[in-house]
């Protein structure tokens, strides 16, 4: 550490802007970005640092439950800019033709993703710009239109007889998948409450998709999410924001459904990969309904809130406690799925992944029960 400080102070003097801890974080972030993605990683990290320091989209202290510092909500915008530069450049300079140019399904998917991003971006720039019911209605309209125009995204069977019956009737399957899709996008937004939690889930998912398909778009998303993940975990200066969580939610949902519909992945695999946001969403809705509150009202009773409170009592740094929370949850759910997929312990099309999903749910419930006495004291705390 002693040998690092003079270098850090030198950079601090050169920049003349930030405190020593801030510069230490910057050095660490740029080091990891440079090692993993070279000059491109440094560029993406610089872009994210600059966007995080703009006044636009600042989120006040404690607005996000866990966070205790002022952070930027422009994480989604940063990821979008990096991906667009990469894909546009590759399309112009190489033999690559992006999917949306040559395939109607991908065109509709990316139109839906763009709309979801814009919907969230409006909220990031001006909170409460749109009423919750209007946002919900807009998501139903966009995702409903997507599945109406691209019925090939809807799986014909997921291995559960009751649901397979609904999936066999076109209109019912469309309605069922649209409701699920809106719920999934909201679930990912709801889970975006700890450093590295949703970015970690997205990173593991794009890792799986990239290893399975090798598509340049997956590669670009993997790159942008990796840089964001490093930035988010080390500094805590960024949230994905609504633009990021809605946009990533729509991408992961579409890719996941397409993978199941094409038979490359079992529904159990996707359930295991996206276990945390889905189960946490369902448990939160049930908890609020039982308490007589609106199922969509904000609170801090999520597992990540309770785990953060538990870790915070044992670790001095609030950023580290926040990041450990996100890393533990994303690592033990989506990260574990990525690991099992990488070492090829279970084929991606196997229904045994439902067993993995059940294990994750049991782990979630055990964690929730163990941490049930911990209630974070913030503006969204449950009434006693």
């Amino acid at each position, binding site marked *: 550490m002693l040998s690092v400080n003079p270098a850090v102070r030198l950079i601090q003097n050169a920049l003349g802007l930030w405190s020593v801890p801030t510069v230490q974080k910057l050095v660490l972030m740029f080091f990891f970005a*440079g*090692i*993993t*993605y*070279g*000059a*491109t*990683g*440094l*560029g*993406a990290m*610089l*872009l994210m640092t*600059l966007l995080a320091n703009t006044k636009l989209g600042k989120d006040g202290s404690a607005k996000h439950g866990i966070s205790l510092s002022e952070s930027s909500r422009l994480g989604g915008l940063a990821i979008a800019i*990096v991906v667009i*530069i*990469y894909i546009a*450049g*590759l399309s*112009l*300079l*190489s*033999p*690559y*033709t*992006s*999917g949306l140019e*040559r*395939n109607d399904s*991908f065109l509709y998917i990316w139109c839906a993703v763009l709309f979801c991003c814009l919907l969230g971006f409006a909220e990031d720039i001006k909170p409460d710009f749109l009423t919750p019911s209007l946002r919900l209605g807009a998501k139903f309209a966009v995702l409903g239109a997507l599945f109406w125009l691209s019925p090939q995204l809807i799986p014909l069977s997921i291995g559960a007889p009751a649901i397979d019956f609904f999936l066999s009737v076109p209109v019912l399957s469309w309605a069922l998948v649209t409701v699920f899709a809106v719920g999934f996008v909201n679930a990912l937004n709801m889970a975006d409450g700890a450093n590295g939690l949703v970015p970690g889930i997205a990173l593991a998912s794009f890792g799986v998709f*990239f*290893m399975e*398909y*090798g*598509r*340049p*778009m*997956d*590669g670009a998303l*993997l*790159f942008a999410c*990796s840089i964001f993940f490093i930035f988010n975990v080390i500094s805590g200066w960024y949230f994905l924001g609504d633009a990021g969580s809605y946009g990533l939610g729509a991408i992961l949902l579409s890719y996941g459904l397409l993978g199941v519909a094409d038979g490359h992945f079992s529904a159990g695999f996707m359930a295991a990969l996206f276990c945390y946001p889905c189960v946490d969403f369902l448990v939160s809705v049930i908890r609020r309904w039982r308490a007589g509150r609106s199922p969509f009202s904000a609170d801090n009773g999520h597992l990540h809130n309770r785990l953060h409170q538990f870790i915070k009592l044992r670790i001095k740094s609030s950023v580290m406690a926040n990041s450990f929370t996100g890393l533990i949850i994303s690592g033990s759910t989506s990260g574990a799925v990525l690991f099992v997929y990488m070492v090829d312990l279970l084929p991606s099309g196997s229904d045994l992944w439902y067993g993995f999903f059940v294990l994750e749910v049991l782990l979630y419930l055990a964690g929730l029960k163990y941490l049930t006495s911990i209630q974070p004291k913030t503006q969204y705390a449950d009434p006693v």
Partner: protein
Amino acid sequence: MRSIVNFMVAFGLIWVGVLESATSSVEDFRQVLDDGDVEPERSVKHILAVGLVGSSIVSSIIINGRQTVILEGHEKFLDPNPMLSESFVGSE
């Protein structure tokens, strides 16, 4: 003014990786046309531009794109047209 320069530097650095990926991709298609199936090269310049993880990602994209082209039609892949890059259709 300072922030504009910083943003330009950031975009420029990202563009380095885009250029490296695109160049690797075009070179790979030309090499495959001349020499058959070859592994994408990993020079020092390549590693500096896209990093260790990025290098693996670029290689996977190139190999996958090549396979897609082969699967989707030999006639386009074997076209001796010098405007080679424009006649290819990559993956997603």
